[in-house]
């Protein structure tokens, strides 16, 4: 046993200069390092903690909705803001992609899950079933919205119905649709829409103030919809990622509807 390596072990270290200019510099340095750590911690909070918090709230909302559906209780045509109204499945995002949609689009509601714009159509109603969702943090339900292609299915489950929507042809795809992509089987019913809907495309990027994208005829606010009003779905999120400069918009059209039967799920959920 040697004590050569720690000869000053029991001697207190000389006190470093704590006052004066050096002390101030050291204090500022420590403060800056601390602030840097706080910023890193905030990033951690945004990327992970908000996900955990939202996952818990989403889980809660889903079990409440499941219970209402089981008991057939607490269901109204005009649900109160913050309550679950439907579930959304996007099979091309994976078989586990399902979120409970809540009524309303306030920040508190969107922290729970995708929110239905109050006043727009409900699933299956003629008009535009418009839903907003987070792209970054808070469970980021609509993180991959930009990856959706035309004809991708968006399935909405309500208390007693399944509604299958498909993303409309993207910009530039409408020309030659029936001979091209439209000929493939999943695209049945998801071709370019006629009449006042003809300029509605599957995906667009708009400015934040452009509320007309969630109008019954997207892009044409105030225009009276035709009697055979199309049943559309519109999803909105922020764009580009991490920015609020624009909004990413997805439009889909309802192509099928099935009454819910015990244990049965629409083929679109697995086939896409």
């Amino acid at each position: 046993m040697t004590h050569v390596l720690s000869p000053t072990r029991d001697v207190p270290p000389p006190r470093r200069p704590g006052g004066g200019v050096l002390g101030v510099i050291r204090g500022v340095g420590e403060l800056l390092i601390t602030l840097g750590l706080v910023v890193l911690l905030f990033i951690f909070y945004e990327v992970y903690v908000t996900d955990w918090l939202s996952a818990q709230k989403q889980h809660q909302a889903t079990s409440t909705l499941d219970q209402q559906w089981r008991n057939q209780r607490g269901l109204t045509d005009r649900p109160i803001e913050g309550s679950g109204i439907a579930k959304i499945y996007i099979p091309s995002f994976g078989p586990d992609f399902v979120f409970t949609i809540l009524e309303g689009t306030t920040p508190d509601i969107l922290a729970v899950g995708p929110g239905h714009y109050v006043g727009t159509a409900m699933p299956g109603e003629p008009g535009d079933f418009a839903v907003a969702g987070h792209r970054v943090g808070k469970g980021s339900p609509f993180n991959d919205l930009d990856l959706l292609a035309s004809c991708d299915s968006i399935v909405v489950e309500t208390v007693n119905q399944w509604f299958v929507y498909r993303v409309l042809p993207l910009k530039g795809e409408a020309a030659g649709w029936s001979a091209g992509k439209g000929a493939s089987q999943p695209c049945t019913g998801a071709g370019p829409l006629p009449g006042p809907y003809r300029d509605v495309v599957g995906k667009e990027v708009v400015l934040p103030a452009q509320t007309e994208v969630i109008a019954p005829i997207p892009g044409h606010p105030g225009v009276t919809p035709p009697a055979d009003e199309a049943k559309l779905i519109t999803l909105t999120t922020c764009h580009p990622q991490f920015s609020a400069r624009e909004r990413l918009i997805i439009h889909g059209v309802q192509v099928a509807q099935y009454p819910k039967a015990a244990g049965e799920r629409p083929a679109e959920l697995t086939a896409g």
Partner: protein
Amino acid sequence: MYSWIWRHLPGSRAVKTVEVLLLVIAVLALLMFVVFPWADARLPFNNVTTG
């Protein structure tokens, strides 16, 4: 800053260690439950709706 805090904490070395831990937990809780939610509401990418 940190050495100043350490010097002004009462008690023995072991007691001070516990006090430091409590302080760190208190600061973390303040950040996680008060400061960060407040700052979060002001971030641009929370704006996902139109209008």
